[in-house]
């Protein structure tokens, strides 16, 4: 399966077409095709994962044998005799578990242009295999969830078609071997996001949100293109990801080129993964159906940026000097996003918007982790975040199904009485997000904080550790607020809420279950026996010449008791403060009414730091207003003047041509040919006189001529 993993994206792609063409006629309107396709893809992804584990184990074995032989030789040379096995074993352990795991690749040449072969192919290594599992699993659960959530919708079939297309594009992006393929799939997921956000485009806010998402992503894509082009030329005319990374790491590419490429690609990450300042589309994207938000804007598409950074990590590591500095662009952007997003989550009344800003904040964590050099931590957080965030979103969908609204303040409250399953899973997922021991979020967030504290150059990335801890505190607080407003207190709505059906609840349980256990995939060395420690890192971290682990400055954070206890405490304090505020009503309620600075701060947050104003009125407005007017003036006077002048000249020329040439020459020629034809016809008319002798004359004459010609010329 490893060699053939490239068929995994093709199955949902085929299902996209099948659903488009046949979906409406099928008994379940196409959803069965979608579920079947993603189901098969998920099974294949599982098989691929297990085969990958074998692959890694084989690679480890081989390198062990190899190093055994090397060590034995050295010993034999040194002491002239074979050493005791115990000493050998000790030396082996010292040599460390640095072994190479070659990625599985397939490639075909797509076309050639200007001496460059443009290839498409599959690069299957650790992160790809992990993402295969995550994407197919979450997509499958979202498919099942959607059969209940969007049942009876006006465009049910198209919804599933686009879900399939999205899954196929995301899987293609994951397994892309070249940056070109990456770009194609990047854009495709953007298109699917646009189509799915605007699923109910009859209402203007939804289509506006879809447009905003797409266009903001387009702005970032400029950076993507610039980055890819820079890398193409810098790495010697190649789009191949492995090769680009390898060259970045062995010093063949100048540092300036790497820096430029990293900063350009950072723009793409900012737009796709919702980092400040291009994050404005993500909360608006909540206009789409909730399964879409769960799949695309929580678990999978928004992590495409993270994935891209992780894939091209060699470029970033060298370009931004991650291993040896204590602050860099990637970490700064991530850090700002962590805090900014978390702050905004406090003032939202729409439950999905809270979760959206929470996603923004958590993505900030992942980017920050990549920025400080903790690659495994970032991807591990991606892994766990997918599960608990999807669970939270699907839970909010379940709630909205019951109360027909997303507004927490107005329509929710006290729902735990009527929706026990949703309440339980939502609570577990919240705890995982906050990072309570021993749920998943604890392990992954902790590793990020440890990385910030331990990695990097002088002074490490301590500032970012503080940022991370602050973020954890805020996450705890706002999520507790959400839980309170939704499930506790008085019911403020007007309907009769009830628990949702099994197709909605089952995915909730599955995802929250995973949120509980996923953390044990990467247990730190200090807390677990050798056989189960750091399994995630063991299997999924790339080990090869194309990944910075070959560099001496690359390091993996170790578990730190201090940080773990500190972050847990902070989290509990956050929960506690929120509890006091909401359950007990303590604290300065209504402070925004009384105090000017508090009011100002609140207004700032309510207006999302005025970023939207900046973009629509500032930048777009400038283009709409003065620049457009100037362009219009040029168009009307200058360009139109030229065009009108050309038109006038053409009219004059046309008149001349008509009178002289057309009427005079051409018509005469045509008339002449008519006369010729008539005359010729008159002439030939005489041939058919009916007189036999004339026919005979023609016959004999022609024969004589041909005979003469024959004799003369042949």
């Amino acid at each position, binding site marked *: 399966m490893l060699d053939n993993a490239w068929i995994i994206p093709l199955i949902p792609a085929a299902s996209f077409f099948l659903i488009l063409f046949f979906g409406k006629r099928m008994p379940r309107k196409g959803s069965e095709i979608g579920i079947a396709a993603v189901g098969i893809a998920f099974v294949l992804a599982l098989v691929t994962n297990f085969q990958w584990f074998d692959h890694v184990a084989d690679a480890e074995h081989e390198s062990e044998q190899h190093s055994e032989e090397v060590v034995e030789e050295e010993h034999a040379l040194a002491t002239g005799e074979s050493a005791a096995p115990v000493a050998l074993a000790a030396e082996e352990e010292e040599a460390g578990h640095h072994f190479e795991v070659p990625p599985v690749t397939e490639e075909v040449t797509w076309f050639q242009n200007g001496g460059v072969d443009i290839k498409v192919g599959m690069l299957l290594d650790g992160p790809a295999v992990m993402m295969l599992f995550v994407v197919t699993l979450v997509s499958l659960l979202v498919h099942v969830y959607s059969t209940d959530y969007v049942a009876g919708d006006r465009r049910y079939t198209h919804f599933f078609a686009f879900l399939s297309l999205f899954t196929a594009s995301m899987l293609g992006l994951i397994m892309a071997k070249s940056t070109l393929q990456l770009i194609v799939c990047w854009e495709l997921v953007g298109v699917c996001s646009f189509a799915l956000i605007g699923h109910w485009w009859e209402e203007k806010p939804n289509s506006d949100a879809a447009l905003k998402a797409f266009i903001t992503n387009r702005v970032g894509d400029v950076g993507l293109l610039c980055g890819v082009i820079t890398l193409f030329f810098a790495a010697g005319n190649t789009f191949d990801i492995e090769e680009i990374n390898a060259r970045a790491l062995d010093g063949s590419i100048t540092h300036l080129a790497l820096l430029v490429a990293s900063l350009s690609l950072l723009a793409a990450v900012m737009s796709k993964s919702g980092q400040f300042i291009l994050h404005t589309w993500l909360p608006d994207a909540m206009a789409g159906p909730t399964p879409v938000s769960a799949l695309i804007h929580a678990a999978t598409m928004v992590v495409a940026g993270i994935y891209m950074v992780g894939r091209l990590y060699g470029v970033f590591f060298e370009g931004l000097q991650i291993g040896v500095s204590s602050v860099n662009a990637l970490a700064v952007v991530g850090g700002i996003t962590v805090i900014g997003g978390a702050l905004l989550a406090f003032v939202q009344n729409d439950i999905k918007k809270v979760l959206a800003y929470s996603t923004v904040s958590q993505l900030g964590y992942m980017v920050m982790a990549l920025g400080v050099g903790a690659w495994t931590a970032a991807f591990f957080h991606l892994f766990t975040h997918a599960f608990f965030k999807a669970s939270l979103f699907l839970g909010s969908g379940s709630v909205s199904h019951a109360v027909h609204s997303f507004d927490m303040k107005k329509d929710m409250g006290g729902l735990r009485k009527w929706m026990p399953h949703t309440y339980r899973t939502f609570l577990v997922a919240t705890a995982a997000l906050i990072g309570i021991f021993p749920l998943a979020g604890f392990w992954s967030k902790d590793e990020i904080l440890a990385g910030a504290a331990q990695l990097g150059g002088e002074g490490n990335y301590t500032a970012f550790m503080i940022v991370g801890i602050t973020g954890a505190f805020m996450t705890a607080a706002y999520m507790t607020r959400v839980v309170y407003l939704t499930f506790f207190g008085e019911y403020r709505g007007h309907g009769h809420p009830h628990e949702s059906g099994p197709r909605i609840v089952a995915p909730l349980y599955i995802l929250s279950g995973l949120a509980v256990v996923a953390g044990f995939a990467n247990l730190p060395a200090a807390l677990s026996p050798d056989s189960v420690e750091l399994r995630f890192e063991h299997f999924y971290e790339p080990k090869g010449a194309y990944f910075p682990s070959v560099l001496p400055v690359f390091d993996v954070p170790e578990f730190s008791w201090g940080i773990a206890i500190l972050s847990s405490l902070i989290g509990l304090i956050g929960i506690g403060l929120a509890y006091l505020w909401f359950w007990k009503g303590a604290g300065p309620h209504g402070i925004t009414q009384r105090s000017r600075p508090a009011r100002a701060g609140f207004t700032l947050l309510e207006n999302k730091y005025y970023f939207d104003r900046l973009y629509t009125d500032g930048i777009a407005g400038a283009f709409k207003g003065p620049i457009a007017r100037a362009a219009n003036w040029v168009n009307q006077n200058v360009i139109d003047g030229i065009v009108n002048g050309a038109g006038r000249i053409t009219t004059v020329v046309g008149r001349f041509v008509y009178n002289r040439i057309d009427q005079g020459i051409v018509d005469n020629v045509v008339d002449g040919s008519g006369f010729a034809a008539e005359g010729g016809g008159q002439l030939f008319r005489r041939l058919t*006189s009916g007189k036999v002798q004339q026919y005979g004359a023609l016959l004999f004459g022609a024969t004589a001529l041909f005979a003469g010609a024959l004799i003369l010329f042949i």
Partner: protein
Amino acid sequence: MLAQQVQEAAAGNDGLMLNQFLLLGAALFCIGVYGVLSRRNAVMVLMSIELILNAVNINLLAFGARFGDITGSVFALFVIAVAAAEVGVGLAIVLIIYRNRHSVDLNDVDAMKG
């Protein structure tokens, strides 16, 4: 002595040339063609056809004599027979035309005009 003269003459170039007969046949043929194409009376056309057939006969017999093959004579006989048949039928047709139109002027026979 006569035989000697004959032999001497035979050794030289005084004998009959094949071309003489062939050219005679060709000339007769062309005269016949001229007659076919330009005579107005249908019977005259038939006569011209007879000229053509005779020219063919001369040709056949000339070659027969040259190569010592009796086939020339055989087919000349056949040609004569066919010519006889053809004249019989042809005149019958001319008679019919005469009966219908009271004229054998070929210029008037243009029902296939157009």
